[in-house]
């Protein structure tokens, strides 16, 4: 070593694998603000809409109402994290539901029907991904597949709603241990996706590709397959959502419902998932979906017209954006102050 030990330039003293408590608290606030918001809403509604709101049975209702949004939101979030906004969800959902319905009315077993529907979701994801890799804007590409898949759904169903699909109630209206099936599906989906994104090598690389493709490429990793994976996850979620809708309604409607994408996007945006990619956490997206359901539930209990719910949701989204920005700037300022301190006082 040619350098004297005290010249380990810029050394911040006594910093090891963990940040100081203050900085970790700031990072926590930045990342978990939405949970605080949700808890506040619950407290307010518990008082305002008492005694009907704060009940276990009502909690189950909220969870069930949030389930479908949560499934689609997981898909939108997966796409957004990988840096692509997937608009094709409603079409994929309709196509998956209708295909499963058609198969079931033609005496195919339930397992095969569900498997085919999910495979369709994955396949459309692959198509979306491969087209996008050619350098086209994912927004435009998925608008194209949205149109194509909703048209296909109408073709499969012959233009009519397929009714009488009672075989799927086990994943629709049935309750297990007092909790409706869609909620169980959401719990399983979110656990699997969260563990994948945060704990596995491919999940972490997937997040990294959304954040900085070049960094991943220079690490000698093929980034393209992770970009396709994003569309595959969102296609899968869309198909799953279509199946749940079919199961709950016991009928498959070929009309793609565009409100799916906007509700899901609201939940994703509330959760602070950057549409530019690379950041976001699924548990927060789940809370985002729950917030939407919580608001509309409380307003329903109070007998307020549902359009007020839309207004409140919109305002809340804007307020959440403002809060996020505020917290982020203050965190940054605090961190920069800390960095300055260590550079200027931490050595020599």
């Amino acid at each position, binding site marked *: 070593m040619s*350098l004297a030990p005290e010249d380990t330039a*810029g050394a911040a003293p006594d*910093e*090891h*694998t*963990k940040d100081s408590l203050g900085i970790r608290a700031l990072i926590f606030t930045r990342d978990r603000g939405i949970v605080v918001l949700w808890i506040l809403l619950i407290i307010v509604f518990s008082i305002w809409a008492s005694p009907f709101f704060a009940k276990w049975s009502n909690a189950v209702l909220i969870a069930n109402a949030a389930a479908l949004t949560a499934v689609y939101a997981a898909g939108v979030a997966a796409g957004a994290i990988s840096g692509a906004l997937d608009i094709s969800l409603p079409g994929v959902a309709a196509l998956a539901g209708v295909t499963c319905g058609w198969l079931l009315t033609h005496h195919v077993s339930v397992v095969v029907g569900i498997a085919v529907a999910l495979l369709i979701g994955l396949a459309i994801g692959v198509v979306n991904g491969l087209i996008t890799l050619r350098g086209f804007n994912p927004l435009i590409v998925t608008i194209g597949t949205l149109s194509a898949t909703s048209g296909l759904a109408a073709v499969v169903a012959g233009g009519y709603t397929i009714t009488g699909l009672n075989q799927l109630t086990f994943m629709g209206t049935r309750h297990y241990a007092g909790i409706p099936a869609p909620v169980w599906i959401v719990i399983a989906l979110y656990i699997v996706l969260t563990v994948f994104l945060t704990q*596995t090598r491919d999940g972490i690389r997937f997040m990294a590709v959304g*954040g900085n493709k070049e960094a991943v490429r220079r*690490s000698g990793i093929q980034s393209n397959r992770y970009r396709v994976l994003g569309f595959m996850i969102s296609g899968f979620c869309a198909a799953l959502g279509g199946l749940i809708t079919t199961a709950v309604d016991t009928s498959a409607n070929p009309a793609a419902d565009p409100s799916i994408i906007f509700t899901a996007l609201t939940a994703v945006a509330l959760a602070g998932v950057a549409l530019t990619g690379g950041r976001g956490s699924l548990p927060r997206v789940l809370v985002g979906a729950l917030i939407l359901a919580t608001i509309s539930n409380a307003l329903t209990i109070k007998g307020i017209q549902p359009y007020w719910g839309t207004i409140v949701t919109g305002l809340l989204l804007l307020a959440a954006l403002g809060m996020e920005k505020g917290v982020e700037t203050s965190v940054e300022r605090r961190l920069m102050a800390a960095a300055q301190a260590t550079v200027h006082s931490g050595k020599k």
Partner: protein
Amino acid sequence: MIPLTDTAPALELSGIDMHYGYVRALDQIDFRVANGEVVALLGDNGAGKSTLLKVMSGAHRPTAGTIRVHGREMEFHSPTDSTHAGIQMVYQDLALVEAQDIATNLTLGREILRKPPLGWLGFVDKKAQRKRSQAELDRLGVRTAAMTRPVEMLSGGQRQVVALARSATRVSGERNGVLLLDEPTAALGYEQTRQVEALIVRMASHGIGCVLVTHNLPLAMEVSTRIVVLNRGRKYADVATDKTDNDQLVGWITGARPSMFAA
């Protein structure tokens, strides 16, 4: 191991010509960097510094001349080839994943998996990764911030240090490689520049060869062991840093002083 490879320079270029049409960007350049050496590559704009660096990193293929890595003749068809040979370019855009923490950035592409059965499913051992990243930074004598700190929350200098350390860990395998640095302190303030300078010296002391392209004469004098001056595609000087001074260097850079290699 063949004894030749131990004494041979980590990277040696001889008789490198680079022609773009009628323009001779590089004219019969000989260049070598040994393990543990910091060679500063100086020259005015258009002198051929960046072109030479791109030849070393495999981004350009020279019109003529040979490249040897640890004495073995090689041909680079792409930057990937040179990376495999242990030569790593540190780009000016740092290419860090902003939202991820330091440990993740340092381990991307060479993750540590958990023990089976979780390892079979691709589960990552984050604790081990943090420990290894910390150990690698400690070995380089770098203290930036906690390993769990997202890169977006680091200052410019800290980011540069993380990017340099990442490259350093990539080339310090069983045999030390070469780092190619293009203006590593261009965007940094005084304190941060000092930090990066110290890191370069320390990486060299660990046996990594460094090639430093810069306009910054004080930086070159501070960290390099040898200085090579290019002037209009020709090598004008190749001297040990302590055998020269500012005036001489400026003379070679501007062409006011005749080349050391003039016939």
